[in-house]
């Protein structure tokens, strides 16, 4: 069903997510599409990227001759530093995260429920790799934006009444950006569709969504 409805591609989702960045923000970007957000930071908006392995002010990937094994991001990729960079321990890094000092976290998800529950770390019965810093980020960062495909590869909805997978955090998601549109979640008030990707109708969204949502496009 509705296989032909595509909406935004990965880069367009990242570009949409980048609009959530504000001047002066400290931001943590997850692996996958969230990483692409760094490519779309609007002009005039100064953003500092945090990497939870102990760095504030993350720069781009290095040129081949700049690779430094002592300088990686939370996805274990080699990166570079900037003139503003500071390094710190993992304890200090998560004190920063847990203490609410990071303005925004953008991350991927397997499922999000209509009350903002998030599942993105574990599928029972499969090999479990671990939650890494995801539980700390969603519990601690001021605002959590999820960027994910609207439906799974097999076409199942990922926006649900309740998550079926083990949770990463309870009532932690503030916004979901999918290929079909944008949803806002207000704690205790449920989910609201606020934006549609070009060429996507409300009915298209409803057809691929299990979660209850208000429409405010």
């Amino acid at each position: 069903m509705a296989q032909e409805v595509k909406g935004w591609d990965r880069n367009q989702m990242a570009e949409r997510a980048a609009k959530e960045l504000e001047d002066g923000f400290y931001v943590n970007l997850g692996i996958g599409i969230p990483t692409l957000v760094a490519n779309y930071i609007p002009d005039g908006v100064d953003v500092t990227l945090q990497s939870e392995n102990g760095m504030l002010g993350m720069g781009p990937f290095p040129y081949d001759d700049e690779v430094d094994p002592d300088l990686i991001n939370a996805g274990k990729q080699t990166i570079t530093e900037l003139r503003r960079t500071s390094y710190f321990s993992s304890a200090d890094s998560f004190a920063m995260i847990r203490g609410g000092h990071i303005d925004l976290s953008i991350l991927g998800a397997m499922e999000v429920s209509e009350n903002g529950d998030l599942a993105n770390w574990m599928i029972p019965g499969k090999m479990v790799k671990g939650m890494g810093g995801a539980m700390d980020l969603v519990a601690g960062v001021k605002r959590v934006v999820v960027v994910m495909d609207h439906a799974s590869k097999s076409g199942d909805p990922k926006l649900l009444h309740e998550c079926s997978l083990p949770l990463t955090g309870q009532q932690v998601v503030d916004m979901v950006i999918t290929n079909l549109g944008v949803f806002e979640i207000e704690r205790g008030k449920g989910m609201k569709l606020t934006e549609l990707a070009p060429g996507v109708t409300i009915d298209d969204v409803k057809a691929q969504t299990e979660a209850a949502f208000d429409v405010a496009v």
Partner: protein
Amino acid sequence: MKKIYPDARAALDGLTFDGMTVMSGGFGLCGIPENLIAALRDSGVKDITVISNNAGVDDFGLGLLLQTRQIKKMISSYVGENKEFERQYLSGELELEFNPQGTLAERCRAGGAGIPGFYTKTGVGTLIAEGKEHKEFDGETYIMETGLVADLSIVKAWKADEQGNLVFRKTARNFNPMMATAGKFTVAEVEEIVPLGSLDPDCIHTPGVYVQRLIKGDHEKRVEQRTVRQRETA
């Protein structure tokens, strides 16, 4: 009190025993105590509980201790890079306790700081919270996590002086400073031992009180995910 030892094997002499708990610094393969991990393998110590954010890869880092089945249990936040880990875990040979990464870091910091328990919002409403004490502060629910200590901590720093003052480099700092505080014995390996007085006293990350033994190591510093960009051609 000489803290400097000739090599990793000598530095671990008398500090290992079967069933012990070992903290091992590093994030992925970045900032891991390569030489001390290898010496721990060579010591033949068995049934170790290892507290480390990750489990190395199959043929490097803590993967070496998995190959030889010296590890009984891992306390980690992410172990996705290691196939041998997966095999041993799925076959029930290896115990595993997942901690959220920030909780793991804070548990090590707490253990070293004489704090046996603390409250955090991380993991509330998830599997992690099961069986843990819940408590409300200002209308929000938190769970209690406990401090961690180890019989032995092995850490990797960039530079040290003979007093055991340590300086780390870039993101290779990660878990090393807290783990250095949480070991009953802490052994550090460094790239360079510098003359006393040549480290800036305002910039010492780990004061020497936390380091009982020290070696200069040889470091491969393997890169896990070499990710580069291309120079634009003119």
